[in-house]
């Protein structure tokens, strides 16, 4: 069976990180999300993968490369204008043979166990189109599904307002027939209407009970990170990694090739340190921290529940907690991401001039790629720093 991954969308709610990359290109728990999904696809017996790309496609194509990825054949198909999901799916129409079924995957969903396996199994046992369903923490953003006892979907209610529904929701993984393209074009590429028609033809559900996450907002990256780290079963330390004396490790710790951990550092798992990283003396890396490749973390830094993308550096004596740091970010010495309000009220994040209530009592900052934060900055909880932005250093004593 061929798999179709939708990775063209701009994901504006994931800003600042989606401004500079397609969302599947995020590094989480020491791995690119896209690689994680490709691994699971291969493990579920898929050989051919079609990726619909658009927004910042060069990033994806550059990393994965066309043709073969660890035994998978990967082809890219461009969606020129990112208008709708239905339109994205239509881009692969001529790649699917008449009568063929394909596995459709939304690129920004995350599971730690293999949901593709389960969906294909359901397809094989029902021998009819299948939609994977799951129980999310909140129902408002998804298609709410009504089932009968035979796991047939009888109705879908899209994005219901209020808190009336506790239904299973569409999980963004489907097995659909080639005929679905006809249905889509009949309904002017509206996924919602096309799914309604699929229900009339007989659409079965595949229940997913393990963790599931749709990565929508920047703080979802932290949840994704913890879901993946919780699924770890062992520590791995690369042969070429250097651990100096008095380095303390506890819990599950992953240290990649060529990383240098200086004396006195404490690493509390689960945490991961990428390739070629430098972790300075007396650094405290607390649980659920993922440091990307080629990062530098200065002397005495504390990291806690944070995700740092590749090639970033964090200056000495800083604290980064409950935060996401982009690629090639430069954080000066003694910067602190304050991670709670004084009254413990949930942190609000400003996005597109709107304040979003995250519901989280602890949340730090979201710093876009190539931003520069000068030394001595105290960053307010929930701050978003746009990619490439420079924030001047804060001095209490100057020479003027």
């Amino acid at each position, binding site marked *: 069976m061929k798999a179709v991954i939708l990775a063209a969308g701009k994901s504006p709610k994931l800003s600042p990180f989606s401004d500079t990359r397609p969302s599947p290109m995020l590094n989480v728990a020491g791995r690119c999300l896209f690689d994680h999904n490709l691994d699971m696809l291969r493990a579920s017996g898929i050989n051919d993968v079609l990726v619909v790309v658009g927004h910042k496609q060069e990033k994806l194509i550059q990393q994965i490369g066309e043709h073969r990825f660890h035994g998978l054949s990967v082809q890219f198909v461009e969606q020129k204008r990112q208008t709708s999901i239905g339109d994205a799916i239509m881009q692969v129409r001529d790649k699917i043979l008449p009568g063929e079924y394909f596995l459709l995957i939304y690129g920004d969903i995350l599971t730690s166990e293999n949901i593709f396996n389960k969906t294909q*199994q359901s397809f*094989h*046992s029902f021998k009819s189109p299948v939609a994977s369903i799951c129980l*999310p923490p909140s*129902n408002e953003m998804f298609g709410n599904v009504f089932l009968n*006892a035979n796991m047939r979907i009888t109705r879908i209610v899209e994005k219901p307002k209020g808190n009336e*529904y506790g*239904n299973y*929701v569409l999980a963004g993984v489907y097995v659909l027939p080639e005929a679905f393209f006809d249905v889509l074009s009949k309904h002017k590429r509206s996924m919602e209407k096309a799914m309604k028609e699929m229900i009339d033809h007989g659409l079965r559900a595949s*229940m997913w009970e393990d963790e599931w996450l749709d990565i929508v907002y920047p703080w979802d990256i932290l949840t994704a990170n913890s879901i993946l780290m919780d699924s770890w079963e062992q520590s791995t330390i690369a042969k070429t990694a250097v651990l100096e004396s008095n380095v303390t490790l506890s819990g599950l710790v992953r240290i990649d090739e060529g990383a240098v951990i200086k004396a006195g550092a404490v690493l509390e798992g689960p945490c991961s340190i990428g390739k070629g990283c430098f972790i300075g003396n007396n650094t405290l890396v607390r649980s659920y921290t993922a440091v990307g490749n080629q990062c530098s973390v200065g002397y005495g830094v504390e990291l806690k529940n944070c995700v740092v993308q590749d090639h970033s550096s964090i200056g000495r004596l800083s604290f980064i907690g409950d935060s996401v740091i982009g690629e090639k970010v430069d954080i000066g010495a003694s910067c602190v991401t304050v991670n709670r309000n004084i009254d413990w009220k949930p942190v609000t994040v400003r996005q597109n001039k709107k304040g979003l209530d995250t519901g989280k009592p602890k949340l730090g900052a979201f710093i876009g790629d190539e931003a520069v934060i000068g030394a001595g900055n105290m960053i307010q909880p929930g701050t978003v720093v746009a990619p490439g932005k420079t924030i001047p250093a804060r001095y209490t004593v100057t020479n003027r």
Partner: protein
Amino acid sequence: MCGISGAVGHKDISQDLFEGIRNLEYRGYDSCGVALMNSTKLIVRKNIGGVEEFYQKENVLRHKSHLGIAHTRWATHGKVTRENTHPMLSTDKAFAVVHNGIISNYRELRSKLQKDGVKFVSETDTEVVPHLMQKLFKQTGNVEKAFVKMLGMLEGTYAVVLITKYHPDVIFCARKESPLMLGIGDEVKYVGSDFNAFIEHTKNAVIIEDEEYVVLTRDSYTVKNFITGEEIQKPITKIEWDSETSKKGGYPHYMLKEIYEQPQTILNALEVDEKALDDVVDYMKDRPTYLVGVGTTFYVAKYAKYIFSRLAGRFFPSISSDEFVALSPVDRNSLVLAISQSGETYDTLTALKHAKAKGAKTAAIVNVIGSTLSRMVDRVILQGSGPEICVISTKAALAQMVILTNLAMRLALKTRKMTKKEYNEGIRALKEMPEIIGNVLNERSGFIHRIANNYKNIKHWLYLGRGIYYPVALESALKMKEVAYVHAEGMPGGFLKHGTLAMIDKDIYSVVFMPPPCEKELYQSTLSSVAEIRARSGFVLGIHFDERGKNRDLFSEELILPAVPPLVAPLLQLVLAQLFAYFTATSLKRNVDKPRSLAKSVTVG
């Protein structure tokens, strides 16, 4: 539902056939039979009981053969007897047939054949098939022609598989609306109700569709349409999934599947034989009655105790089967009504033997037809809930509660404690329940899942209910214990303040089963229990029907159900509590369908 299996090969297939039919046992297991070809003679063995039991008892595996068919039956109506067990034979013993489905015009066919002098040995619809084959073969002299002609005469739904001594190397089969599939192995070819019949031997399957028939030999299969006679090229489908998944119908666990089947099992429970109900009511009318069960069914009995008291004004004590002998309350004037899913529960059988020895009348509500319990009692009500595979009882227990409610209403009607109008209203409320449960399952699963996931690490739960909500609390707590291995204690709400309240602190969590607000007194008194716990900073999860109530602030968490008549309110709460236990168990990664320290039917004392 029944299971069909068949095999033809270059080697002995008797072991393959046994494994095939055993793997189909989930489709039903009240009786079983096989027909094997021995050069040109048919060996037929059949009996009531499960597959393994039957094979052992009849020593079936000592017969070797290269061709055979087998059947496992699950009767929803009608008797379980050896005569009614498949395979069915023609009078001349030349044709043997197994069948799944219902031949709707069998009475007509049967009387025609009887006019021709054919003697029928069973009450089944299936038996017309071999007799028709014998007759048509005599006319045509060709088995395939006779088979097609015979299929043309059948109405209804069927998957039918036939072997005959005239073609000792061939299996004939056909389907119309009942499942049938071929398995194409190298040395052996298989046929079955689904791929579980052969998955252990081959992953190559050919799916047979409606109005198709097959001539299957050890080297080939030919598929034709039996209306047009056209030959159809069938592709081989590779089976890439495991058999467990398919048996579960796509559900992650049998327990969830069976919870979702409850709307249907309630409908079935409402359609049980009225005469069987009235026979038991007749016994109850003027006899002291004891309700007996153990584990879940003891709580079902406790539930029934409240129902009989409330609806029929009778007090029927409920006794846990294992304590029955110690209490020994019966004499020749009493009735003992036992409740059991399997009908094989050792403690319950012991209690009933004791009751019988004392001369008491006995009756039972049982799911498995032909079980020991169903055979030993004077009167039996078969609940018709279908096989319950998960060791934790959900759908069978709910069906038993519905049947007992119906029984109480019938008793009340007979003894003039209830008018015909009230009775009809009660039945209507029960009949509306399946749809409401369907909605609750769809619209509440997420809320229950969220709460279960948030509180999965809580070590101690108190389940509280008053009146009829007390047995619901007990049964709900048992679900939690047996599937999630979490301590949960059921207790009457009023009992709390007589000691146990001392335990309440921030580490003990409570679930309170609130009656609908229209049951004013019960509602108020239950509310006072909630207040007692909250006053000691205890956590309370309220399961209630009070969408706009002003008391909602009292609960730390709540699960709200749609407003329903009081008669069915506790049953709806039980469904919610089943899901709560289920999601707690899955969040804790428990082995849901086979929890530790529990067997499906506890047959030891």
